[in-house]
Each structure stands twice: as C-alpha cells, then as structure tokens.
C-alpha cells in the first residue's frame, strides 16, 4: 500500500538491523493519505535497466514452507514462482492400513487451527463409506461445532494476524500497549475465548476436540455450562460490532481478475458449513462423489505442493469471499444489513476484500451459534432423550468408499476414503483449502506484481506477502518469517 508498510516490513525482515518502526499514529495518517497502487516517486524508484530478483522465503506453519521468487528484467516481470513446501508428515500415506475409527482423530492433527473441520469432513466421508446415517440432533451439534470453529479461526486471523499488518504493529501484543487500541484487543480476545469455549462445550476441548465420533457424540453438552454460554454470547454483541467497525476503517488495496473462478458449497436452505453442493461463479456443479471429475491436482516439480485446477479450465478461489459471493442470499438479514452499513457490496471480486467477508462471517457465526445453542438447550430439558439420539451406534467395519465436502474456515475441504472389508483404510485423498488456493495465489501474484514494479524490492515483497496472507493460508502466520533476497545485474 505505501512505503510505511514496507518500512514496518523491513524492520522485521532484518532483525537486529536497527531500523525502528515508526510511530503508529504517523503511519495511520500516511496509510489513509496514500492513493492505492500509485507508483511512488522518490527514494524507492528503481533504475529501469536493472535485472532484479526478489526472493521471499518464509517458514510455513501448517502446510510447510512457502517461498516466492520474482525475477524482474528491464522493468518487466520475467518470472514468478510461488512454492509451498508441505511439511513432510504424509497423512495420506500413513492412514493406509488404519482402522476407520482412528481416522477422524488422526486427520484432526493436519491443522491445529481448524481441527474440527478435518474431523467432521472425515466423519461425513466415512459415514458414507460405511452406510451410517446420523440424527438431526447430531447434524445440528456438528454444525455448531463447525460454526464455533469458523468463529474462532476468523477472530484469530483478523485480530492476531491481519490487523497488526494493516495497522503496522509487529503483533497484537504491541497493539494492546496503545491505550486507544487496548479495549478493542481485549474485546477480540474475549470473543476468541468465547468461540473456543463454545467449541469445547460441544467437543470437549478447543484444539483437537474429542467427542465427535462415527454416527454421533460420546457425550451430551452440559446444560448449565450451556446456559452460561448463552449469557456470554448475548453480552458479546458489542464486541462483534467493534471488530466489524475496525475492519471497516481499513484501506484495502485492490486486485480484481475478471477470469477468477470462485468455488464454494451452496445449500438450498442455509449458509453452507458442513453440507451443500459444490458450485462456482462460472457454472461448475458437483457433489462429493463427482468432485474428482471436476477438480484435479497437478504436481509439478520443483514445486513441493500439489496444485488444484478446475478440469479443462484454470485455477480456483475458495474461502470466505467465495462463500459470500455465492451464498449472499442465504445469509441472515442482519449480516446483509451490516454489510450495507459498512458500505460493502457482494459479490466482490477483490482478493483483498476477503478480510471483509471474514469480518461478516464473524457476525454470522455469532448469530448462528446463538440460534443453534438455543435449540440445543431446548432439547436439554430432557437430556436422556438427547443422549439416545446422539449416542454413537455400533458400526461394523466393511468395504466401501465415501467422500465429503465441507466449508472449513479457509474454504472448501475435501476428504475421500476407500475402506477394505475390515474397515481399514485402503486409500485416502485429502485436499485442504490452502491446497485449493495455492495455484490461484500464483495467478493473483502474476497479475498484481506488474503494477508494483517501480517500487522498492522490499515493498514488492511486502505487498506480495499481504496478498498471500489475505487468503489466510495455513502458513500465513509464518509469513512473518520473511527473508528478502535481492539480486541485481
């Protein structure tokens, strides 16, 4: 966005280099006074004839490491390679031979930020393979678990990862030291805790919940705790709105590619979380069982990541922005009104508008968890009846195949398993939201970088980092671990 940003970035890219971040106040003013994406004159201007190599290496959080390599020659973009390394954990490999009962628990460990999403997707896929049906009560409890997870993950991203970026602080902890920001930080932390406690109420604990199993839940949530949560949820209204308004003050860069294909689940009655049909902004339709007929993966060395593509077309874009663009009319009226109040319109093709979609989904998650919690509490008037409805049935292992699609906080998630006669995994196929998005990130970067060429290398690197982070990729936090290598002829 502006040079202030690149300076803040520089301070972190060269630890101990002595460059001091500016005072936040000053930065804020500059943030607002700078026109977006205007080439800046002055100290950052680059000599036109130079060949430049901008190398961004950052450590990964979940999917492994990611690096970015940009080659600029005679003020033209020559080459751009985004590489995501997968941490060598090989889930799909070591799941082979495991009993189906072990699977949800193991895949949970793919990601500590969205473990419930992996569990619930695996459960749905395995239940299809095993021919297990679940009750309406189980369906609702699972939706609450997933919504609480989206709630938590989005608050984490918006407050702890994105806001410090946009407001030019190294972290939320420094933000909290500013008297004018402290109340907002405290509100955000309170929201995060609330979302975590909701997850734990249904799942037993916030990270890697334990109660969701094939066919149901091993225990019923406690009524008294649920009532306390209801009170806390009601009291959190102001916290949600403060966060939303804070996001509305941000000045977002703009990147729109007309050819982009947004992909998300669409459900007839509700905003999609655990169920729905795959749809896209360019007419794609699929179900879990036909997913592989429309989405393919390519592994192109030397890249370490599998990249997803729509068969016969190009990349795809999943996540909160895609969900919002494709499901606008299934959002509660309050959420649509809030968007109007903030002056936001959807569908929005701007990649950077993802943070707005995320903020609106926080409001959605707050509303939806209140609705679901009330419903669950109403059943808990007769707990033994609920217990019967959610108690996991005895399931015998058998051969079969099942796939499932869900909306995890970061977007479309696919799991598919084939089981042998004893119910052991014969093959597993898992595509995470970040894996769906990587190739699209590359396309976005290719479109974004040419407009930045007359800025400094540091600023190009930082802008690219911001763009990638707006996807909230699983490696986003570690995008803070940034090395910039410049090579000029």
């Amino acid at each position: 966005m502006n040079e202030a940003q690149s300076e803040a970035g520089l301070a972190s890219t060269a630890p101990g280099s002595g460059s001091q971040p500016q005072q936040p106040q000053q930065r804020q003013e500059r943030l607002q006074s700078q026109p977006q994406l205007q080439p800046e004159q002055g100290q950052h201007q680059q000599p036109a004839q130079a060949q430049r190599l901008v190398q961004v290496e950052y450590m990964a959080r979940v999917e492994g490491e990611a690096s970015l390599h940009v080659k600029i020659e005679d003020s033209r973009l020559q080459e751009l390679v985004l590489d995501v390394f997968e941490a060598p954990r090989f889930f799909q490999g070591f799941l082979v031979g495991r009993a189906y009962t072990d699977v949800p628990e193991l895949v949970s460990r793919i990601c500590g930020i969205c473990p419930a999403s992996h569990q619930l997707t695996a459960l749905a896929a395995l239940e299809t393979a095993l021919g297990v049906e679940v009750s309406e009560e189980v369906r609702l409890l699972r939706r609450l678990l997933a919504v609480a997870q989206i709630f938590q993950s989005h608050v984490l991203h918006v407050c702890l990862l994105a806001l410090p970026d946009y407001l030019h602080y190294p972290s939320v902890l420094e933000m909290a030291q500013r008297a004018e920001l402290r109340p907002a930080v405290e509100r955000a932390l309170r929201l995060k805790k609330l979302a975590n406690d909701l997850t734990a109420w249904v799942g037993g604990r916030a990270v890697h919940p334990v109660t969701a199993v094939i066919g149901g839940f091993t225990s019923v949530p406690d009524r008294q705790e649920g009532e306390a949560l209801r009170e806390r949820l009601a009291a959190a209204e102001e916290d949600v709105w403060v966060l939303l308004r804070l996001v509305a003050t941000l000045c977002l860069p703009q990147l729109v590619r007309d050819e982009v294909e947004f992909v998300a689940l669409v459900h007839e009655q509700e905003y999609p979380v655990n169920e729905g049909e795959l749809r896209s902004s360019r007419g794609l339709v699929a179900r879990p069982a036909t997913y592989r007929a429309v989405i393919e993966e390519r592994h192109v060395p030397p890249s370490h990541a599998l990249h997803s593509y729509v068969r016969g077309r190009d990349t795809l874009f999943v996540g909160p922005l895609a969900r919002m663009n494709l499901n606008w009319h299934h959002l509660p009226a309050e959420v649509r009104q809030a968007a109007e109040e903030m002056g936001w319109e959807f569908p929005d093709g701007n990649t950077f508008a993802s943070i707005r979609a995320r903020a609106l989904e926080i409001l959605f998650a707050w509303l939806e968890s209140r609705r679901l919690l009330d419903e669950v509490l109403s059943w808990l008037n007769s707990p033994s009846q609920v217990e019967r409805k959610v108690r996991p049935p005895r399931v015998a292992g058998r051969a079969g195949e099942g796939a499932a699609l869900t909306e995890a906080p970061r977007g479309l998630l696919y799991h598919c398993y084939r089981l042998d006669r004893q119910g052991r995994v014969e093959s597993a196929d898992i595509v995470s939201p970040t894996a769906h998005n990587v190739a699209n990130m590359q396309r976005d970067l290719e479109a974004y970088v040419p407009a930045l060429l007359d800025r400094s290398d540091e600023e190009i690197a930082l802008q690219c980092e911001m763009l990638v982070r707006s996807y909230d990729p699983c490696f986003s936090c570690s995008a803070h671990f940034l090395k910039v290598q410049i090579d000029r002829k």
Partner: protein
Amino acid sequence: MQESGRPRLAVYKLSSCAGCQLQILNVEDLLLDIAAAVEIAYFPMASRQMDPGPYDIGFVEGAVTSPEEIQRVKQARQQCRLLVALGSCAAFGGVPANKNRFAQRVVEQQVYQHPEVLNSVEARPVEHYVRLDATLRGCPIHPEEFLELVKGALIGATPRLPNYSLCLECRLRENACLFAQELCLGPITAAGCGALCPRLGRSCQGCRGPAEGVNLAGFARLLQEKGYERAIIQNQLGKYAAAAPGVALAMAALRWEEERR
C-alpha cells in the same frame, strides 16, 4: 535476560499442526499479563517482530522430520538457556511419527507424483538430537501446564507436571471405568488432562504419552490376552508416542513372544 529484567521467550516450530502454539494464544484471559511478565522475543505465529537470541526459555513444537529441522533444533538448543518440548510431537514424535512404520518412499508415493523432490527423514522427538530441560505433554498441551512452567521459571520454583498414570486422576474423579469394554490407554498414560476423554465417555487414546515407570510391555501383553491383535496394539500405543523408547521395546517384546510360541 534483557535490561528489562524479563525473561526472553522463544517459540520454534518444526513438523506439527500448530495446535500447541495456538494453546499459548488460547490463554486469552492472561495473554496480555504474560506478555508483560516475559518478553516474547521470537514467536512467528504471533508476532513479526523477531528478535535474535539468546533466549531464556525456548519452546519447540513439532517432530524433527527433515535435515533442515535437525539444524534448526540444534540451533534452538544453542540459543536457549532452557529448552522445553511443547507437546507430544516434540516429546514423543507424536502423530508425525506414525509414518515411521512405512518405508519413507512408500508414504511419499501415496501423496506425491514426484517424491524425488522431497527431502525428509524419520520423524524423531527433539530429544533424539538435543538435550531437553522440560517436557509439556499432550496433543495439544494443556494451557494450565504452560502457565505452570512459565510461572515456575519466573519465581524459581519447580513446576508441578504430573507424570503418574492417568487412572489415578480418572478414579479420583469417579468416572465410570471403560477398560472392560474398550481399549483404554489410561493405565500407561501420564495424567494432567483431568481424564478428559473418560469423563466424556471415550477411552484414553494416549495423547499425553507414557507415564513414568509404567510397564509398557506388560500392558501390551495384557491387551493381547484380552484379544486385541498385535497390529491394533501397535497402532494404539504408537498413535501419539511411536518414537517414545518404551513403545518400541514393548512391541519388540510382543513380537518375540509370538515367535517363541
């Protein structure tokens, strides 16, 4: 320590799911107080401000699964006065060590069309490469235990981190024992979770790793006598702690016994 007199904290990540680091951020009520009591000098997940070492306390999350990670864990040891394993991946190999049952290329080929670009080694716990000063168990860690450790370091007291069997905790809570119907790992697993799973109607899966002084081989034999197949016992004991030394020993004992019969 810095001029401020506050101990400097670092959090490193190896092969892991980031859930244990997230548990540090999940102590929302106390997070700002902790940040005032210690200096969070290096914690990429939380802050882009990454101050160079040395640090007073370092937490390592994740198993060691690549040559680069071997270097990183050695560097962490050099940079930190106290080095702590953050969770079962770092302590026992955790979930990543499940791949060790297979030849490396076999698991790679399940996932990648061109595994030759990958560069990974068997998943090992941190202590396979460097000395540790303390271990926080769990998949994920318990936030209370993280606080206990940091408090202990601040006031110079030995943190209380239980390493006795979970059954003790479970019986004290008067849960109904599940061992008769299910494969519960409570007897050989370390306490400290409040017997979360048995309390919620699920048998213990062993996510906190083997308790101190337990007879793993004897327990494995007991399970076999109860009719569980060796592969199931192996999967279960190894789910979170495949690289804990006692586990390999117990499985070897079972195999020998089977061969003798």
